[in-house]
């Protein structure tokens, strides 16, 4: 936005000027027939329904099917397509695999890029200035704040999302999960483990 004097200053009371203006924009777009109320409501409903459960299913499948895991790492869009997940065409998805040697952490320093098709909307902290600023300069300290202390010998790779590539972490499969079903395994795959601020939960 320019510094146009016509705009009222931003307020940070309970209902901000920007809140009112976006509702005014919705109203005008409907009145002019540019969009319909039903379309807007439909997108609201679909976005409310998205959760990290889809990403967790992808991870659990990769844990139990090596060939799928390979395809997921080399062409994530095609691999998740096998599970009937369709990604938005705006950006590619890259899956990065945690191993005994290297841990991955995802950030978007420029804004908030995130694999919402599989994880739902990003958490507030992912969009915060503190996370965006610190994840790339002191990632181990950031992980410690999340309760994850990486062994000093473990490598740490921080991947910075862009509008063109979003990242999903394939966490390590926890020990003691041999023989568990894919559904039960998916229950161990937390949102945070797919961002890289946590390990998958233990059974």
């Amino acid at each position, binding site marked *: *936005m320019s510094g146009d004097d016509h705009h009222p200053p931003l307020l940070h009371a309970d209902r901000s000027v920007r809140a009112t203006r976006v509702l005014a924009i919705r109203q005008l777009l409907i009145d002019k027939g540019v969009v319909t109320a039903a379309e807007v409501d439909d997108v609201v409903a679909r976005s409310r329904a998205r959760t990290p459960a889809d990403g967790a299913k992808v991870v659990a499948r990769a844990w139990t099917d090596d060939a799928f895991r390979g395809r997921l790492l080399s062409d994530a869009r095609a691999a998740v397509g096998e599970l009937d997940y369709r990604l938005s065409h*705006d950006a590619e998805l890259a899956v990065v695999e945690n191993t005994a040697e290297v841990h991955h952490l995802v950030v978007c320093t420029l804004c908030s890029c995130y694999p919402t098709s599989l994880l739902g909307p990003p958490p507030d902290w992912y969009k915060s200035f503190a996370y965006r600023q610190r994840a790339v300069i002191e990632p181990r300290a950031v992980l410690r704040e999340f309760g994850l202390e990486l062994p000093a010998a473990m490598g740490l790779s921080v991947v910075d999302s862009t509008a063109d590539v979003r990242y999903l972490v394939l966490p390590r499969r926890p020990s003691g999960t041999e023989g568990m079903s894919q559904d039960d395994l998916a229950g161990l795959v937390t949102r945070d483990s797919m961002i890289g601020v946590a390990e998958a939960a233990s059974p």
Partner: protein
Amino acid sequence: MPAVHDRGGLPTDQPIDRAEHEWADWEHVANALVGVLRRHKIINVDELRRGIEAMVPAEYESSSYYERWSASIETLLVEKGVLTTAEIDAVAAELDGRWG
């Protein structure tokens, strides 16, 4: 000085606040409007980003996430001639009046 949106590596002592706020209705609307406007090919994600990144730095920093989206949606729709600022002002004033 990097642009205001380019946050990577800026020093800060701030801890990461992990509290989640519950989305207000207008935030859902802002999010959904972008989805619908994209589907109609009226705006795209790169334009949304450009509109956010073009905000006055002080406004960028003091705005919440969806306040930034709201600002960008308005910038783009006015720029493309879909809506005028005067129209938005008028309806916003009406909504303000209605809500008192």
